[in-house]
């Protein structure tokens, strides 16, 4: 009997985390690849056209076709590029975003690391992602890429501050940086009700963080060709692409976890609730892409520093006052 319990303990402590890690990795990368198809179909729907509908039923095999295409393309480094940095840059964005998924609680029991500073870790990792864009723009050694990298750096100065501050209200109410505990703190009322300004500010920051329309200023295909990834092709470009979609999934997950009670919900299993809530915000990301124009990057900076940052600070002060007054 003791031997058997040892085996089951080893199973639980060793194999289970590995399974979860691979499960999360496969699930997240599949979702990121599938999002390319979902985005094209949804944009098509909202622009009164179809989008990819030829390969397989409803065009679902388009995902496979895209993956095969991008993998089989020539992996080319332009001769004028700064080779090591050029190759390194796309790996940074994918690895930092993937690392952020390590601390996300997918259900009360499914998580990879139960980190007590989980939220700080996510914020730190997503900030590191900016290196990828800035370095890619720099290493490409071409003017449009440099513009893109420069704008990414400027944009980062614009949103990173109020992004962190917008979440501090949630942290105050939950009394923890641990994402699991933040979810558990929402058992009575979701933070989207008590922290509504925080939600709005984080949503804006999330769009900027994921570098999506309206804040795809570093990419800006109608001004900068493709911005920081102008010189990239093949799977290196694919890494930026996957990184962008992983970023969308991550931000949507964070919104669901921090403001909409994460996995909590009636009837359905926790994982399904989290997937539903996340899916809603992913769709919102795509809807925003179909709607908004792109501001200039000085407009984003002004908006960030003159509107969002004061709002975040006021929200922080009010929340702090409330927490103090309630004496908890």
């Amino acid at each position: 009997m003791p031997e058997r319990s040892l085996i089951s303990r080893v199973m639980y402590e060793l194999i289970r985390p590995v399974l979860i890690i691979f499960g999360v990795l496969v699930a997240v990368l599949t979702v990121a690849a599938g999002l390319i198809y979902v985005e094209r179909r949804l944009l098509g729907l909202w622009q009164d056209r179809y989008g990819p509908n030829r390969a397989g039923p409803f065009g679902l095999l388009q995902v496979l076709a895209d993956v095969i295409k991008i993998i089989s393309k020539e992996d080319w480094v332009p001769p004028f590029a700064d080779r090591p940095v050029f190759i390194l840059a796309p790996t940074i964005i994918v690895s930092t975003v993937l690392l952020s998924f390590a601390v996300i609680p997918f259900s009360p029991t499914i998580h990879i690391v139960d980190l007590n500073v989980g939220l700080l870790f996510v914020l730190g990792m997503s900030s590191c992602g900016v290196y990828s864009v800035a370095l890619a723009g720099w290493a490409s050694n071409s003017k449009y890429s440099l513009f893109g990298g420069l704008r990414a750096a400027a944009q980062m100065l614009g949103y990173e501050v109020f992004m962190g501050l917008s979440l501090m209200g949630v942290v105050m109410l939950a009394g923890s940086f641990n994402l699991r505990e933040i979810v558990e703190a929402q058992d009575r009322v979701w933070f989207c009700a008590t922290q509504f300004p925080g939600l709005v500010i984080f949503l804006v920051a999330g769009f900027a963080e994921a570098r999506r329309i309206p804040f795809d200023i570093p990419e800006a295909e109608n001004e900068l060709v493709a911005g920081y990834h102008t010189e990239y092709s093949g799977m290196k470009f694919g890494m930026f692409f996957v990184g962008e979609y992983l970023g969308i999934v991550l931000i949507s997950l964070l919104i669901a976890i921090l403001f909409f009670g994460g996995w909590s919900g009636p009837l359905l299993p926790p994982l399904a609730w989290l997937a539903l809530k996340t899916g809603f915000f992913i769709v919102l990301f795509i809807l925003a892409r179909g709607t908004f124009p792109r501001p200039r990057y000085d407009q984003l900076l002004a908006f960030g520093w003159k509107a969002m940052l004061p709002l975040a600070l006021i929200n922080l002060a009010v929340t702090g006052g409330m927490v103090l007054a309630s004496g908890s």
Partner: protein
Amino acid sequence: MLALIKGLWTIFLHTFRKRETILYPEEKPSIPPRWRGRIILARDPDGEERCVACYLCAAVCPVDCIALQAAEDEHGRRYPEFFRINFSRCIFCGFCEEACPTYAIQLTNDFEMCEYDRTNLVYEKEHLLISGPGKYPDYNFYRVSGLAIKGKGKGEAENEKPPSDPRSLTL
């Protein structure tokens, strides 16, 4: 801020709109009658070739995709010995149709002419020539021109008087 949300809502409402796309191979688009598509060579109402090999189409063609060689039958009627259009060059501008004095060369509303082999896009006269008169069913060049050919002597064309003898005027 309110305008942004209103915009999101407007775009979202497009979920329930009808899609504008015509799913082409299954659903054919409606082609206007004056569409400039595949080029054909028409025949006159008598079933003879309209083309008189005047080279005007080849001369006006901006991409030089038309090649032909004039020939003449035993009655003095001109026709192209060969007539070749390289559709891999053709830009379907319709200048040849405008230049043609006999309505022989015409553009049709057929656009489905893809080929896997580029050389298959070179159309010879046998591919170009159709059996009917195309867009101008009643026009017959040799019936309105003054030229004498087989079956129509001088002065026998439509709206044409018999040739006058100029010497009779001086008497």
